[in-house]
């Protein structure tokens, strides 16, 4: 089955930072358990949000939308899949 990725969000300022943080939160080990412990995961998400807030001129609403979509993408679209898609796009 071919999967189509809407990559437009990855062009939004700050989105890749948020996506990477959420991807780490959803990352699983070989046993299917979370790689990051809960406290580390929460700290990682806060750091990413703080970084985007300080580096980009985003309204709180825009940041909230990016965070929501980053969470959704990371949950349903593993990092590996995104990398494969990017490779295919730029091959």
């Amino acid at each position, binding site marked *: 089955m071919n999967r189509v990725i809407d990559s437009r969000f990855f062009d939004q300022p700050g989105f890749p930072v948020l996506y990477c943080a959420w991807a780490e939160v959803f990352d*699983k080990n070989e046993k299917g358990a*979370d790689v990051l412990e809960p*406290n580390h*995961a*929460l700290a990682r998400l*806060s750091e990413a949000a703080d970084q985007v807030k300080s580096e980009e001129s985003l309204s709180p609403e825009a940041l*909230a939308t990016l965070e929501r979509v980053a*969470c959704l993408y990371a*949950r349903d679209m593993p990092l590996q899949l995104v990398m494969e898609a990017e490779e295919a796009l730029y091959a």
Partner: protein
Amino acid sequence: MTTRQQQILSAIVEQYAEVAAPVGSSLLAKVFGVSSATIRAEMAELEHLGYIMQPHTSAGRVPTDKGYRLYVNNLGKEEETPSENRGERALTARVSGGGLPERTIRNAVDTLVELTHNLGLATIGPQLYMSGLSNLFGQPEFMSGAQVQQVARLLDNLEPWLYEAAPNQPLNVYIGQENPIGRSAGCSLIISRFRSSYSDHSYIGVLGPTRQSYRDVMTLVRHAGEALEGALYE
């Protein structure tokens, strides 16, 4: 409240837990074998009594914290089934083959995470072990950055609260606004107290959205506590 209204409330709680979408009258009409108009009248009464509500975005209804509470209280009146279900058997196996107490408790938490798709937690001496945060953020209710701060505060408060409040029932269920460590986080905390070599007030349980399969989750959490006490308390 009539028996049929209680049955409709139970159906709404269970259906909503399963599909994460507001429950409509047409589905319930099929389940109960009555007309949609009859169900709508019963749902209007349940809404008037504060047990269900209508989200702005849907014609269907979802349970309120008060509705969940009534449902959970009614579950407590049901007789327990004597035989272990598959999840309970898995917990028993993971606990009995656990080895050291710390490993055994971690195994029980990890099994609860797998079975309930919630955040799992347990006290191991003075430490709080947690696992499965991604399950929480995988739920539609928690898919926002704003929830991150709320959940972080909630988890910060959890450990000191457990030691201060020391809930004493074998099974303790805190639903939504009842949750003493984060009333606005939209979470339910379901914990079992058990005795271990660490403490007579050791805890294992789960934290998840108020939209839960309470019957299954409560059974598993209670069983986890009992299995750990059987394995770790002399």
